[in-house]
């Protein structure tokens, strides 16, 4: 009897804990719209895409049990020389682009803080202009820059150089580099903005102390500025990393992945399979592999850093 009363008391407490009157469900209700958006806009399409990659399907084809091919698209990916070339190109583009973004961004951000305020105020809006341009327009703009009659070869001509010295987008050896340069032009302003905010947050006392200790500008830059910016660099690395692994527009507009697939990226290869070869399930597998590579290269270091930070806390 007592036992039963105890059970019912426990049940009562449970019911009481989830009472709407006390607002216990309020956090869940407030989060519900976001959770639904995440579910329908992110998770369900992702699972649907993954499911498609396991079936031999395409536009207008129904997913049937006969069309189930398991992980054969993923196995094919590792045996497909174009796919492997696309992985290499994507990673090369990503690392080249990020390194350039960080180096150029840091130099420009420091330079803009060093020059008189009047000049920096005038220059800062100017350097951010490329950020406002869509990547496909950047690609088209640079197509004219790289044209033999474009500004690049006009400038090179002043130094007695020409297309034979730097073939740009017309050669397998320089096509990928040419797309990376176009990316630098567009994304460096973003890095400048973020790093400027980081630079302004460094306590002035650190520089004063360094000056008293007799540190020169180079030592100050490498021993104070760079370490103080490390957290900002991680954020930039994550954002740019994810962005560059997905690269499509600039390469598509500039080279179309050529010459001879020398600049083909994973996104372009997935697009080609989906819309030019009507091989949607393989395109889905390529897209999933892109996601996994992004996570392995940029996601894991970020997660590890977060974990070590929470351990310290």
């Amino acid at each position: 009897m007592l036992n039963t009363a105890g059970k019912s008391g426990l049940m009562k407490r449970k019911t009481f804990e989830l009472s709407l009157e006390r607002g216990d469900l309020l956090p869940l209700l407030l989060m519900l719209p976001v959770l639904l958006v995440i579910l329908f806009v992110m998770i369900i399409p992702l699972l649907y895409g993954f499911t498609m990659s396991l079936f031999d399907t395409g536009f207008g084809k129904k997913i049937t049990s006969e069309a189930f091919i398991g992980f054969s698209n993923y196995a094919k990916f590792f045996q497909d020389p174009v796919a492997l070339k696309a992985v290499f190109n994507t990673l090369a583009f990503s690392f080249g682009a990020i390194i350039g973004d960080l180096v150029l961004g840091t130099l420009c951000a420091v330079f803009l803080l060093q020059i008189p305020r009047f000049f920096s105020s005038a220059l800062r809006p100017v350097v951010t202009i490329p950020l406002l341009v869509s990547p496909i327009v950047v690609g088209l703009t640079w197509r004219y820059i790289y044209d033999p009659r474009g500004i690049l070869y006009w400038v090179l001509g002043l130094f007695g150089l020409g297309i034979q010295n730097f073939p740009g987008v017309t050669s397998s050896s320089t096509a990928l580099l040419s797309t990376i340069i176009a990316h630098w032009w567009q994304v460096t302003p973003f890095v400048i903005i973020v790093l400027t905010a980081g630079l302004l947050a460094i306590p002035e006392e650190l520089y004063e102390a360094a000056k008293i200790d007799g540190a020169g500008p180079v030592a100050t830059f490498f021993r104070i500025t760079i370490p103080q910016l490390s957290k900002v660099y991680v954020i930039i690395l994550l954002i740019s990393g994810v962005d560059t692994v997905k690269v499509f527009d600039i390469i598509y507009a500039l080279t179309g992945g050529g010459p001879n697939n020398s600049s083909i990226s994973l996104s372009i290869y997935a697009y080609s399979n989906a819309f030019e070869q009507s091989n949607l399930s393989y395109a889905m597998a390529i897209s999933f592999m892109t996601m996994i590579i992004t996570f392995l290269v940029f996601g894991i270091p970020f997660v590890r850093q977060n974990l070590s930070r929470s351990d310290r806390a």
Partner: protein
Amino acid sequence: MKRERKAVLCFLILVTMVTAFGFAQPKANLLVSVWAGPHADLQKRVTQEYKKDNVTIDDVDYGNLKAKQLTSFQALSGSGNYDVVWVNSQWMKEYTDAGYLLPIDDYIKSAGIDMSIYSKGLLDGCVFNGKTYGFPTFAQTLIIAYDGDVFKKEGLKAPTNAEELVSIAKYFKQKGSGIALPAKQGSGAVTLFSQLLFSDDGYYFDKNGKLNLTSKEAVYAASIYDQLVQNAVPGVLAWHHDETAEAVRMKNAPIGIIMSGLANQNSDPNKSLIVNSVKYAPLAGKNGKAAATNSFWVWAVAKNSKNPKAAFDYIAWMASPATEKKQTLADQQVSGIDALSKDPEILAKAPFLPVVMEQLANGKIDPPLANFGKLKSALIVSLSEIATTDAKPADVLAKLQQDMAGVDFSK
């Protein structure tokens, strides 16, 4: 009596109003998908004259057009999906196989349209399994455009076969320029290759339907393509059709292989420096025969259209002789209607038309096979390899043939 008269009058007014407003067919709203460009601007202008229904044209750049059409075909009827689609002839097989397009034979029959006015070669690309899926229009082919003044000055004659074309390209290359052609990794290079192949009576497949990229015609076509690229103006490896046509128009190349759909700009004084000197020649093969890769566009009705009859009426109007002539005169489009190519008024406006029609008459269409897209994508890369490396065309094609061995080209 007066009251009766008033009643009759009121009744008549009521009947008139009901007839005029109540039973009048409401206008349908049609959404039309077309490829963006000068032709789309013209289509919009011409469509303003179509009063039967409300038509909205959505012009999309070529790179995104197919993807957007495919997305629309998946949508529910009446959910803002396309009613009419302007389809590249090379996508027709895929679209009809997937059931995205509406067969229009019944509509054609009830409208009493004579389909024999359309070029047979093009119309064949609109018929699948005995059913007609659209009206052909806007045929395109690669032709040779050259600066007649430069040729006269240099004492040169228009090339009449592939060897002569290579010789002329070499001549100009030695003089510091060269030929302009679409050699960027993309479909433009494949069109050029296939046109050279078709001109020599070659094809992708042999009589038994087996892939035949190692035929002497295919190797010859690839070798001519290679030689043309080696003797081209600098930069062609990054050029598609637009840049090639521009190079000829702006006198950066004295000769070029351009898409006929862009030839009208040669006579536009705002865009061209060769208005009075431009001349045209067929892009011929080894023996002087010129054949097109019959690439054209098709006005078709989307199967998920909410207003299929209204959509058919619109495409029938757009592809009618009167509307086609209007567009040809305005923009020198090459119509799918045979008779228009002999119209003196049109010939005066489009001097390149005889060359185009000669090539279209000998032309072939790309095979409507489910896996042709796979072959084409691989061919794009192989031609880029031929153009950018020292690899021999015969070896590259042999490797491609080997790589494609496992692909099913039977359906």
